[in-house]
Each structure stands twice: as C-alpha cells, then as structure tokens.
C-alpha cells in the first residue's frame, strides 16, 4: 500500500514537472496538437469533412491536428467553446452557417457573429428542393403552380425549426410570393424518410443527403437555390432562372476566436490554403460527395455577413427573431 502511494506521488510530481516545463518551450507554432472543434456528432457531414481536413492539414502545418466533437444546442455549444477559447491558434472550429448566422438571431446564445475570425471557407452545401415520388408536381413550374393554387397546403419538410433548411425554404417562399407549410423534423434524415414514405410532399435538403435516393429514383430534385446551374443536377432549374430573387447555400469552414497572434494566423491561413489545393484532399472530399468551394478569409467573412443580413430579414418575417432572448 505504501509503495502504491509513493508510486502515485512520484507520477504526480513528474506530471507537475512536465506541466511546468512546457510553457518554457513556447517555441514554434504548433508546439502541441491543434484541435478543431466540430459542434456536431461524429459521423455527420461536417465531422467527416473536418477529419479528412485534419489529416491533410497536419502535413502542411507541421504538427498534430485532432478533431473534437462537442455536439449540442444545434451546434451552439461547440461553436461557443471555440469562440471562448484562448486565441492562441490551438483551438479552431468548423464555422458552420447554422450556429454562426442563424442561432444568434434567436437569442439566448452567448456569442455573436462579430466574435468570429473567419480563416477559410471549406465548402458550400447547396440547398435543393426534392419532391417525393408521388407528389402532385414533377418539376419546379408545377411546384410553384401547385403552391399558388393551394396556399399553405404544400408540405415541405426541413431538418428542424430555425435551421438553415427552414430559413431557406421560408426565404424562398417569401421571394416567390407563395405560402408553403413547413414541417420541422428532428433532422434531415427524418424529413427525407417522411418524404420517401409519402407522408409529406417535398423536402428541402442538401444534395449529398439525397444522392442515393435520387439515384434510386425515389426522390426527384426539382429546384436548386443557386444563380447558376450546378454540375450534379444539370437539368434542374435554378431559382434565378425561375425569376425568384433568392439563393441560399449552407457552408462550413475553419474559424478561430478573434485575437490570434499575427504570425500564428499567417501560418494557419497559409497551411489551410495549401490543404484546400491538395489533390489528395480534393479527391477524398469528392468521393464523399462534398463540394469544395475554398474561399480565403475576407471572402468568407463577406459571405457570412451577407447571409446574416438575409437571414435576419427572413427570421424576423417568420416571427422567430430573438424568441429565446432573456426577457
């Protein structure tokens, strides 16, 4: 027993010694592992993309990069952790659109979009509307006609109240002057399943989530919320073509808390730039069905701010603005 106790004491002292010694070695960044906080569960799109990026980033940054999952609160918990971490370059986050652009508008969140240092945009997730096999409309024109003829009856599922998909479909409805019935499910999978089963007529989601169902012929993509046609669906009209002044895409990238030292930030930005041009990385992402649309820091920030302004308009219109704020 005594030996056990003194053994423990020895280990503690050694650990303490190491901990004290570490700061003295405040040398080359990165001197310890860099963590990227993913505010969602393991196995999801953002998580997988972050993990592949981490592998590639390690080569260009010259240090270990690990991914840490901190799910909860629709992504707000992990994002909050990133933005409240020490700005020393060792804690980064996946800057996802939902937690940055939408959640702060609902209130009750302890960060704002102005606290974010946008480092690099990774990719955008297109927003498309897909109709079920037996829906009473087979293309965009029929969809709009049906919606105009049956205001407030056309059911469109989304991944959750206040999420990117919900805001997108409501924004589209506002711009197209139609009334839809938004059905919030607990996640895209549930919404897509309900559409497959014919319980709702359409669903708004991202292409990778719909890919195999479209290939199997069970879902029919009818509209893309972009201003130019996209490669995955060359025959699907865009909102721009249909005369609807509304486009939307969710995005994710790498963010950090504001206040990074200049040299650390420069190193990070350069390593990220190289990672996003790495052919191996691009191939892996393509195989996973992820669209890489790399934009550097300033362009990323501009996109985020623009989306934030549009989102605010839509959120105010649907009456959800500041609904969770402390009264």
């Amino acid at each position: 027993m005594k030996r056990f106790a003194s053994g423990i004491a020895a280990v503690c002292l050694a650990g303490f010694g190491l901990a004290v010694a570490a700061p003295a070695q405040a040398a080359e960044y990165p001197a310890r592992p860099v963590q990227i906080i993913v505010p969602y569960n393991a196995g999801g799109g953002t998580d997988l993309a972050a993990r592949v990026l981490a592998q590639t980033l390690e080569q260009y940054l010259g240090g270990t990069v690990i991914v840490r999952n901190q799910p909860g609160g629709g992504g707000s918990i992990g994002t909050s952790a990133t933005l409240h971490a020490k700005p020393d370059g060792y804690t980064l986050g996946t800057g996802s659109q939902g937690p940055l652009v939408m959640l702060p508008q609902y209130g009750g969140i302890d960060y704002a979009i102005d606290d974010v240092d946008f480092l690099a945009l990774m990719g955008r997730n297109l927003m498309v509307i897909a109709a079920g096999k037996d829906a009473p409309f087979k293309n965009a024109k029929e969809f709009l006609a049906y919606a105009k003829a049956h205001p407030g009856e056309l059911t469109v599922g989304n991944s959750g109240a206040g999420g990117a998909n919900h805001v997108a479909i409501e924004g589209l409805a506002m711009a197209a002057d139609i009334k839809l019935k938004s059905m919030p499910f607990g996640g895209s999978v549930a919404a897509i399943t309900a559409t497959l089963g014919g319980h709702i007529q359409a669903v708004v989601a991202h292409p990778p989530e719909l890919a195999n169902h479209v290939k199997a012929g069970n879902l029919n993509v009818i509209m893309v919320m972009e201003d130019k046609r996209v490669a995955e669906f060359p025959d699907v009209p865009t909102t721009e073509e249909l005369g609807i002044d509304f486009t939307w895409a969710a995005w994710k990238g790498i963010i950090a808390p504001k206040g990074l030292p200049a040299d650390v930030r420069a190193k990070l930005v350069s390593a990220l730039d190289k990672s996003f041009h790495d052919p191996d990385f691009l191939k892996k992402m393509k195989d996973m069905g992820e669209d890489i649309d790399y934009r550097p820091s300033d362009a990323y920030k501009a996109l985020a701010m623009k989306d934030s302004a549009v989102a605010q308009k839509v959120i105010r219109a649907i009456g959800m603005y500041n609904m969770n704020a402390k009264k």
Partner: protein
Amino acid sequence: MDYFQYITPVLSPEVLLVIALGTLGGIVIGALPGLTATMGVALLVPMTFGMETVKGLSMLIGIYVGGIYGGCISSILIKTPGTPASAATVLDGYPMAMKGQAGKALGMATIASAAGGLFSAVVLATLAPQLASVALRFGPTEYFALALFGLTIIASLSGDLVKGAMAGMLGVLLSCVGADPISGAARYTFGYTGFAAGFSFTPALIGLFAISEIFVQLENIFEDRVAMVKVSGVWPTLAELRESAGTMLRGSIIGTAIGIVPGVGSGTASWITYNETRRASKTPEKFGTGHMPGIAATESANNAVCGGALVPLLALGIPGDVVTAVLMGGLMIHGLAPGPLLFQENPGVVVGLFTSNFIANLFMFVFGMAGIAYFAKILLVPKKILTICIALFCFIGSYAINLNPVDLYTMLGFGVLGYGMQKFGFSQAALCIALILGPMAEANLRLGLLNVDNDILRFCSSPITLLFLALTPLSLAWPILQERRAKKKAALATPSQETRT
C-alpha cells in the same frame, strides 16, 4: 448469385479477430455503467477510417452487438443498467441475483441476447429490402400512435397506478425542457443556455438508475455485509429454457420489428416485450420478483433491435439511431452510399456486413457464457470500492458523451430525483419510459396535426395508426382488469370466512 464468395473474406482470421475484439470491447463498454455502446462506436469510428471497409464496419457492428448485450451484466449484478437498452432487465434480473441465482440470470440473459441477435441477423440477411418498405410506412401519425401505446406500459409497470401515472407525467414534463420541436422556442430553460437542447437522455438515465442506486447503497455502505449472493450454475435448466422459448421468440420478433422503424430504439423494444410477455403469461404476478422469462423478454428484444436497425440503414440509407448513423458515416467515408443501390453495386459489402453481424452474435454468446463466472465475481468486491468505481464510471461516461459539463448536472439531478422516487415508492421505470417516449409522442402529434390541418379523422386514417391507437386503451385497461380478476380470485378463495360472519 454466388454469395459464398462474399462470405469467405469475412471468415479470414484478421477480420474474425477484429470482430471478436470489437464484440469483447463492446461487452466491457456495455457492462460499465456510464459507458454506452453508442459512445463506444462513436469514439472508435475514427480508428476504422484507415481500415478497409468490411473490416472496419465489422468491428463497429461487434461493438454495437456486444455493447447492447453487456448492459445486462450490470443490470443483473448491481441493479444499475449498463446501457439504456438494459434498463428493463433490472426488474427481474436483480431480484434473481439477490436470490442467489445471478449465474442463471446471466446465463439466460446471454442465451436470450444471442437468440434475439441471431434471429434479427437472419431476418436482416434474408428480408432486408422487403422489410425496409415497412420503415417508410411510419409517418408522424404512426409514430405518435406507437409512442402513445408505449406510454401505456407505465400503467402496467407501476404497482400503484396513481403513483405510476404521476411518475410518467413528471417524465413527460421533464422531456419538454429544451427546444420546442415545432417552433424552436426554448422551453423551461430559465435562460440557461446549457439546457437549450433539453436534458441529455443517457446522462439522465445514468443518474436516474445508477446514481440513485449509489445513494441508496451509501446508506448501508459501512455495514460491509458479506455478499449473500452465490453464483449457482450458469446454464438454465431445460425446463426453464422451454418456459422462456416462446418469450424469446416474441422478444426477437418485437425487437426486430421495432429496430426496423427508425428512431424508436432498444429501450422501447425491451419495455414493450416485457409488458407483452407479462400479459401473455399465466403467472403475471411473478414478474418483478426474479422470473426468468422477464429477463428472456427484455434481452432478446434489445439485441434483436441491432439487426433490425441495420435493415433501413443498408436497404434505404436511413439510419435508425445514433449508432447506425455513425455506421452510415463510416460507409460514406469509404465512398459507399447505403441504400437500394448498395445491394446491387456492392453486394460484397452488404453480405459481408450481414455475415459479421451473425458472427458478432456468436462471439457475444461465447464470450458471455465463458465470462459469467468472472462477471459474477464482481459481487464479491467490497461494496465501498464497487460503489466508488461505479460512481467514477458514471461521471466519466456522462461527460464523455458530449464533453458538456451540463450533462453532469443532469446526471446528478436525476440521481437525486431517482433516490427520492425509490424512497417514496414511485416507479423509476415509468419516468424512464416517459422520458424516451414523451418527446416522440409530442413532436409527432403536433407534426401529424400540422400535416392534416387538425382533421382528427384524417389523422387516424392509416391502418398502422389505427392499430396502435386501438391497442392503447386495451393496454391501459389490462392492469385494471387484472386487479379485478385477482380480487375475484381472492374472494373465491376465502368463502369459509364469509360463512362464519
């Protein structure tokens, strides 16, 4: 089609080793209260990215299968469910252990788990595409009806109907904390962002059963009574097996069916099977006192869910729970998209997964039976040390799920609640069921009504919905009828007293 060529790669030593390791690891993770199969799979999935597809996914399936089984070990031995799926096993498992039959209880649990798992593995392999379409028939109204039916189990579980109802209603109320499923508005969070998403389910369950049990044990901790429990025998007798055979079949079918419906889960499957078995039994009063069919029911059901959950995943690309969602992620990172096309384009992967599911269940059976003697030794550990270890794992487990300190507060809060409930005779099982099914009932009721514009007739129009809605009042009435029947029996049994007066 020559399936054999797809099965043989799985039977290679390295893949078998990986499945065995995964299953063993899963059993250990499942047995430790606080760590769950879901967490095990989520933590280990990055490790599988470097492995080749079938190997990596087979390991995950092994962890899943082993993890769901492993929970019964701690349920039976220390009245603390190792995973939410085995919460129902406590009801008959622990009393059996107290009677000195821990070994037999574990033996039955292992056999039942293997039976359920193998049944669903076979169903998965033979009928996946056909059954997958059943998963699609469940829309909001069907889920609501199923959840409502599930909630009526509360009535039969609790000894005192009123107290059971109160516990159930408290559970539903607690499940309302967090974001409103339809409007997204935060409810009952009192401005505290930590509860914006409601109480995390697993920490709440760990607190409700494990922490509360620790508090109960603390009362007697210094009276280090020598464990009166003996581990008598491991194999149930042939008679006992025959008694439970029908139950295991019932559990396997219900478990597989519930596994196919996305989002319902092993916990619900085991509760429903327990209830149905009790109803079909000639001696329902024996349930809850250490009755083997009780264990057979719950364990066969929760393992059958594993195979069932793989049906919508592989056939439709719809993950039914977090574990299958992680498996889907694992498939996608290897460039494989689950869904109807997977069967046609990559039959090797699909058959490989079916085979590893089957093999994992076999390993689970072997490791389980072989390990019972060792598992039961836990009971010989002094209570003081055992309790501390359990508490440690509960804290680690609850925190490790989301790395969110709020989960620890949730766990402790529910622990205090559970302790209070035990002291005053309220059923924790009722609260547990309400926590699982309350959100499902509410969200789907409102979605369903939204869908049909509040037209009740249209709401109740689908056959599945009508089926469960019809079963609901029957399920509610059953305990009342039982009580009346018991009273009648008692009255008939004492006619002599009446003639005397």
